[in-house]
């Protein structure tokens, strides 16, 4: 927290040079002196990557809260055996909508929001490649969200066939609302597709001339690769969803008993498995930024990290049927997907080893972003372990579709993606807002979340192993203890997030001014920008010296 005098000097130097750059821009570029538009139209019409980034992050916070309320309703019903609060059908709607909301409206927009903010800043670009498309891609999301959430209020209730919407449960046997869910999925898919294309083009076309691809920061690298994965995954999802719609209304029989219900699962998971990497690779990128900053030591095996990300991406398109080990695949198919899934744990392991090696013999401090990053490494690894166990087919015949899987999902998504997003928000918030957050409040948020997360999700491993299936509103009496503990943890976790919101409001309203480089070990072009940040940045590209000093070459 207390920067050394050396970095302070560095900061002032950077401020000075940027101030000058800004001044030049001011004189020559017409829109440089425009601040944001006044009033609410600013947000509707903005094409500024920072505003769009903020809107994505706010949307994801809303998504997290709504998805969280659904989770707490689920946990409340599961507190003890018997049905106390709702009918089973409504419970199924809750699990389905919770999954969809968390994936498409909490984690994905948060990562896109981080990309919108940070990718242009990290590569010295003045904005996104298609600023206007960026605005449209964002505004499609709230529309989709409203469509999706409003299905709770139409007759027949919200979709209830799981976020995986397997037919025939979601075709012939599904409520009307499935159609609206598919429309929402299409809108979100198109938005993500163009969002991804925009990010890729920004990185490839607008990268400041002095920066080589291999010298890009790891967060930007992860997003470049994730972007391509999105271009593959989103159309696949659209195909699956459209075929379901066609079975429902246009008399086709792709997935009925007279067609092939398993075919849907192949298509869905050909999207679905890359999707889980879409949610984790940018998170890896955040961790690769935060760990070196607080270890004050360059990222270990930087090139390897990039290759590992690329390797994971390729492999992630060859493992989809590990979600389908019990559908009756031929033995050779089961073997292939077992091996490919085990293989993917190698590059993932490399990443974890490299983070640990980055910390090794560093000069560590434990500000909030670093705490989240450390929690990420430990808890994501636990999720990785259960993932490796799930890959082992004969054992998966037992694990599949139990609470063991629910535990796994949440170790990789909550303590994985979500914790990395928190790490990123705490890391960059001083830059975004020009104000420092309250460290005490932040630490409360962190410790409560980490502890309660484990109380909520660790017992689910045991419940699953003891034989509790997932997606059930009521359960046999011997599972009671685990479920009670889970529910208590979930409520603490849920309410702890209110601290996060309070922290955000406090920071933006009244946080003390932050230094341009609030973390003395942080490197990257984003930190040469003065705080508070001007509305338009890098109107003139960063200097070669800045690129060199903030990039990996500085250490060579």
């Amino acid at each position, binding site marked *: 927290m207390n920067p050394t005098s050396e970095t302070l000097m560095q900061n002032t130097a950077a401020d000075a040079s940027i101030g000058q750059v800004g001044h030049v821009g001011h004189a020559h570029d017409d829109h440089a002196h425009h601040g944001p538009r006044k009033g609410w139209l600013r947000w509707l019409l903005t094409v500024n990557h920072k505003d769009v980034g903020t809107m994505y992050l706010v949307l994801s916070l809303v998504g997290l809260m709504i998805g969280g309320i659904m989770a707490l309703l689920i946990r409340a019903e599961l507190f003890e055996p018997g049905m106390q609060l709702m009918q089973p059908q409504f419970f199924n709607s809750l699990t389905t909508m919770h999954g969809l909301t968390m994936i498409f409206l909490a984690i994905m927009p948060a990562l896109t929001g981080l990309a919108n903010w940070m990718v242009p800043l990290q590569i010295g670009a003045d904005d996104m490649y298609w600023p206007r498309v960026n605005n449209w891609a964002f505004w499609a999301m709230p529309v989709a969200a409203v469509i999706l959430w409003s299905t709770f209020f139409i007759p027949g209730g919200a979709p209830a066939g799981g976020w995986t919407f*397997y037919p025939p449960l979601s075709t012939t046997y599904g409520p009307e609302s499935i159609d609206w869910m598919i429309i929402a999925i299409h809108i979100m898919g198109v938005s993500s597709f163009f969002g991804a294309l925009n990010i890729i083009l920004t990185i490839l076309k607008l990268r400041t001339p002095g920066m080589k691809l291999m010298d890009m920061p790891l967060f930007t690298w992860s997003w470049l690769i994730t972007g391509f994965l999105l271009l593959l995954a989103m159309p696949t999802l659209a195909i699956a969803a459209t075929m379901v719609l066609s079975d429902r209304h246009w008399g086709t029989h792709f997935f009925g008993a007279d067609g092939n219900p398993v075919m849907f699962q192949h298509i869905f998971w050909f999207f679905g498995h890359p999707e889980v990497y879409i949610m984790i690779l940018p998170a890896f990128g955040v961790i690769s930024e935060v760990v070196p900053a607080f*270890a004050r030591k360059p990222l270990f095996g930087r090139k390897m990290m990039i290759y590992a990300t690329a390797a994971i991406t390729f492999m992630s398109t060859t493992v989809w049927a590990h979600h389908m080990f019990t559908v009756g695949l031929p033995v050779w198919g089961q073997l292939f997907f077992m091996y490919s899934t085990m293989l993917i744990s190698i590059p993932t392991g490399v990443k974890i080893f490299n983070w*640990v090696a980055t*910390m090794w013999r560093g000069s560590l401090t434990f500000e909030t972003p670093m705490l989240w990053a450390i929690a990420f490494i430990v808890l994501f690894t636990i999720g990785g372990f259960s993932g490796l166990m799930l890959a082992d087919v004969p054992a998966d015949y037992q694990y599949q579709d139990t609470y063991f899987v629910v535990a796994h999902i949440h170790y990789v998504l909550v303590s994985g993606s979500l914790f990395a997003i928190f790490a990123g928000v705490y890391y960059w918030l001083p830059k975004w807002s020009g104000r420092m957050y309250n460290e005490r409040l932040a630490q409360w948020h962190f410790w409560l979340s980490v502890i309660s997360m484990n109380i909520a999700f660790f017992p689910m491993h045991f419940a699953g192993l003891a034989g509790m299936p997932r*997606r059930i509103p009521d359960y*046999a*009496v011997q599972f009671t203890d685990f479920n009670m503990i889970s529910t208590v943890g979930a409520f603490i976790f849920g309410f702890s997030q209110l601290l996060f919101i309070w922290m955000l409001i406090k920071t933006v309203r009244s946080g003390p001014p932050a230094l341009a480089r609030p973390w003395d070990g942080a490197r990257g072009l984003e930190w040469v920008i003065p705080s508070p940040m001007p509305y338009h940045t890098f109107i003139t590209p960063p200097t070669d010296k800045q690129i060199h000093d903030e990039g990996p070459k500085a250490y060579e």
Partner: protein
Amino acid sequence: MAKRLIPLALALTAPFTPAMAAEQDPFSFNMTQGVTATSFDAFNLHMLLFWVCLIIGVVVFGAMAWSLVRHRRSRGAVAATFHESTAIEIIWTVVPALILIAIAIPATMVLVAENAQPAKPDVIVDVQGSQWKWHYKYPDQDISFFSNLATSSRDASQLGAKEPPSSAPYYLLNVDNPMVVPVGKTVQIRVTSNDVIHSWWVPQLGFKTDAIPGKINNMTFVVSKPGMYRGQCAELCGAGHAFMPIVVKAIMPAAFADWVQKEKAAAAATKADAAGPWDMKIAMAQGGKVYGSTCSACHQANGQGIKGTFPALDGMKLSVKDHIHIVVHGSKKNPAMQAYGKQLSDRDIAAVITYERNSWNNHTGDLITPKEVEAAR
């Protein structure tokens, strides 16, 4: 609230004691070793993986903890500048690869063995899932029956039920008619579904296999010990997904032969009964039973249904003809209302319709005869 706080306090103070009363499966927190070769293999692989992960975890987290303690700035640590080491990076790619190969070998052997199907199993059972019950058919023995959630569990699982779940023996894991298999014999199940996807899972048999419409999945097992083995549907299949358990009763081969004889005799008796007397009292008694096991999952024991999903039968205005028609042929509009003509006998259908027309606030006085049902088929 207080009612919920007490079990909570119990759970927190004595986390590892089985909760509450009645009969139930024992509390456990690890995978069962089960009673078949498949379950035993699954358990062994599970434990192998657990130990491997634990050891990797100790090494990785140990290194990390060491550095968190020793390499902190507050202890005066000065950052080193190394950021690469080809040797180390090769080591931590190759060593995990070797570990994975070591895990993959036993997994492959087990998997290949489990998927091999014997040319001639001793007993074949055709298992068919439907919303929300299982149907078992022994083609060689000419036996078939439905297996529904036990009524005590059904009642205790209603919203606002008077009886607590702990009062129902084996709550949610109990059925009216268990599947019966002989101990020590090769049993092959051929699993499929009549509507949506279900999954047939009994942890102690060591596997689950999906019941998929239009597809048949075979699995084979040999149960080593007599007993009642309980499991549940493991694939989301709609509102009743939690309420279609599986119970396998494994008995000695001699007892199995007796059971086959008894089932056959019972089937013959039912056939004979079909020609027996028919009056309001008989019809209402039989209809109540059929309704409780087959219809109440959706229309509810009190006939109120579930608003928006399953219509109430209490106060319905259906003519006798339409009533028989929808029960025998199902609903065109909504496949959840199945064609029960394929599942129930004329007598059962006549009985359940009579029951529905004369229960709750319905007092039509109609007595439906099996003849009428037969005519409507």
